[in-house]
């Protein structure tokens, strides 16, 4: 049951609904009344990509047509940009790229770009990272207002591998970003971070499942969100520690700022643990901007709107700071600052 299956079969009953526990806050069946036709091949100029200057190589997957398998086995460091683009017009499309990194360090800079249309899209990516493979990926999911967009990533690590991911989601009519990591332990490490910036009526759902199957693995997760207007942010994180996966160290944090009374944040940080020699923790906070910090800044002569903006930027900055690739980190920081500024302005107008 998935959006991709519904698009492929044309059967609306394949859409996940709120009755499916993992989709309780992102109901697609109640929302999609009919499926648009399949998106056609897009011919036209794609324009420049955000990460063009940083990447050695750039791959574009337009309207899901291009099915790519990327294999990297040579070692060394590579920076690759991948652009998923939904062309104009309300179409439906799927893509299922595959990636294998046997050896070496790969920096994957991905953008999800949508023309202003009510498209339906599901991109399912599978990724395998070998013993000497290290992947850091940054994903800017910038879908259109009216889009329904699902991303599902299945990542399998070998012992010794490392995987780090930072997702920045700005939502859509429904945007769901799902990451499943098969974690073998054996010194492998995972960092799974997320940031959602949602205004107006946008909806984003960041869902992660990390399954620790072997001894000695680490996972560190930090997701933050800022919601305003009538937006809705969802975070579902599940860490599973299977029997025998001792010495697992897993931490998960989710913190959200709610800036308007009509915005909503839903969270479900889950721990499912079947091994006793582990150290697992999760923390979750939801609230408004700290009034005391706001007061302090104002007392120092900073006008309220700026103080608010400053505190919000500092709040999301913690996620951006964890990006290791410097060029990408700064590009993301600038992009996020601009988005946040627009969001805060709109929220200010509405208030």
């Amino acid at each position, binding site marked *: 049951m998935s959006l991709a299956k519904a698009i492929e079969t044309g059967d609306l009953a394949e859409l996940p609904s709120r009755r499916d526990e993992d989709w309780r806050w992102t109901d697609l069946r109640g929302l999609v009344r009919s499926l648009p036709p399949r998106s056609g091949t897009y011919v036209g100029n794609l324009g420049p990509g955000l990460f063009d200057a940083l990447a050695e190589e750039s791959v574009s997957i337009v309207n899901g047509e291009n099915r790519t398998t990327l294999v990297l086995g040579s070692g060394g460091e590579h920076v690759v940009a991948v652009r998923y683009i939904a062309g104009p017009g309300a179409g439906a499309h799927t893509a299922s790229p595959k990636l294998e990194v046997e050896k070496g360090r790969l920096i994957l800079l991905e953008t999800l770009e949508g023309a202003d249309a009510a498209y339906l899209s599901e991109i399912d990516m599978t990724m395998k990272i070998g013993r000497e493979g290290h992947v850091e990926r940054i994903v800017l999911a910038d879908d259109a207002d009216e889009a329904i967009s699902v991303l599902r990533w299945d990542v399998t690590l070998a012992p010794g591998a490392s995987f780090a991911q930072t997702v920045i989601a700005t939502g859509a009519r429904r945007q769901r970003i799902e990451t499943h990591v098969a974690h073998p332990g054996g010194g492998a490490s995972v960092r799974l971070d997320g940031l959602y910036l949602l205004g107006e009526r946008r909806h984003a759902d960041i869902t992660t499942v990390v399954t620790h199957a072997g001894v000695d693995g680490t996972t560190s997760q930090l997701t933050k969100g800022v919601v305003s207007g009538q937006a809705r942010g969802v975070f579902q994180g599940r860490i599973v520690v299977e*029997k025998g996966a001792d010495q697992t160290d897993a931490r998960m944090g989710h913190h959200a700022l709610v800036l308007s009374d009509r915005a*909503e944040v839903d969270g479900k940080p889950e721990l499912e*643990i079947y091994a*006793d*020699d582990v150290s697992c923790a999760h923390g979750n906070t*939801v609230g408004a901007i700290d009034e005391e910090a706001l007061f302090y800044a104002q007392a120092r002569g900073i006008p309220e709107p700026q103080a608010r903006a400053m505190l919000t930027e500092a709040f999301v900055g913690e996620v951006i700071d964890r990006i290791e690739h410097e060029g990408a980190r700064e590009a993301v920081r600038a992009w996020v600052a601009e988005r946040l500024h627009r969001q805060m302005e709109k929220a200010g107008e509405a208030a």
Partner: protein
Amino acid sequence: MAAVKETVQSVAELERYKHGFVTEIEQELAPKGLSAETVRYISAQKNEPEWMLQWRLEAFERWQALEQPHWARVDFPEIDYQDAYYYAAPKTKAGPKSLDEVDPELLATYEKLGIPLKEQAVLAGVEGAPRYAVDAVFDSVSVVTTFKKELAEAGVIFCSMSEAIREHPELVRQYLGSVVPVSDNFFACLNSAVFSDGSFVYVPPGVRCPMELSTYFRINAAESGQFERTLIIADKGAYVSYLEGCTAPMRDENQMHAAVVELVALEDAEIKYSTVQNWYPGDAEGKGGIYNFVTKRADCRGDRSKVSWTQVETGSAITWKYPSCVLRGEGSSGEFYSIAITNNRQQADTGTKMIHLGANTRSRIISKGISAGHSSNTYRGLVSAHPKAKGARNFTQCDSLLIGKDCGAHTTPYIEARNASAKFEHEATTTRLSEDQLFYAMQRGLSQEEAVQLLVNGFVKDVLQELPMEFAVEAQKLVAISLEGSVG
């Protein structure tokens, strides 16, 4: 080092499950199976008025359309609802007027369980010892309620549910089903159709209930289910503290306890509800034990009302229970303190719901889960704030402790914030007992088992201190007994 002494002493007193005996007593059973006839039979046995029968029949009809839910992280074979007795009562002469008329077998049972049914016995105890009134429920009926007279002088009504239906129909009709609607869920609906007995408490405006109230539930009859129904109402400015305890004989078959407990707190009222649940947990291989499928909910209807749930869950083969608070009144508050211990093959899926509807409502959740043996222990909870719940606040802490390689500990919290001024904080940790601390305690001369008890008691301390004193002592011992044999 009083705690150590206490712990060492409780270890010395360890017994497998000391409440596992059966009382040989003549009993009346409803015909086996469940039908509208069974519902009529139960209602007739209790001499209920027509409206109550209709209420039950309606519930039964709705129940037939419902399906048993499967979302909890517990695993059990399909239940054959036709293969059980829905009503079992010890045969008695019509309505005992005093304790002297109660079957001596029953009195002996309660004495063996350490439940004081004789008021004098309590009074003759140590001077200044706190007294508490007891309602004793044996299978499907309440056998006796103590201190009724003294409570009546204060205006407090404390009696069995059956009696309340007869004596105070206006109160029962007003509040029954108003917190947990008839068809709220599968088990609550079943309970509404066939509920047997439980306690009814009404505390009038401004009255502080002069003593602790307590109900002791005992399942005795084989192949039967117990369907407890309890309703507690604290009127404006009233206060009541209520305790509940439960035990059952050791049997190879599974028995069901499907209860519904409703609490109503009006303006400025406070209800403190404590449970020590010690149903028979089944043997080490998971044979037998009670299925404890319970719906407990409090409605903080009035402004500034407060409800506090404290539970120590050590028994039952399966526990499926979420004592909740609907925080409707402005400034009302809810608390949930829980210790859930699973050992051997026990399964627990328990937690709470804090539903913030009113402005400036507050809630606090402290949950300590301990799993040992081959057991599975899940915390499942919901904290939600409605758009109107301005300034709602919640703090949640769930800690899990794992003892052994074959058990599971899970945390599944749901958080739904729907306004900007709600402030929710949630923390959870899962760890095992610290090797360093164990080593330290053992190096000081404690055996491994004693050292574990000591550390576990430290782990659950935050919750134990919320219990009334006598219960806290009892609970501490229970914690030790439940974990017996879990190390080494």
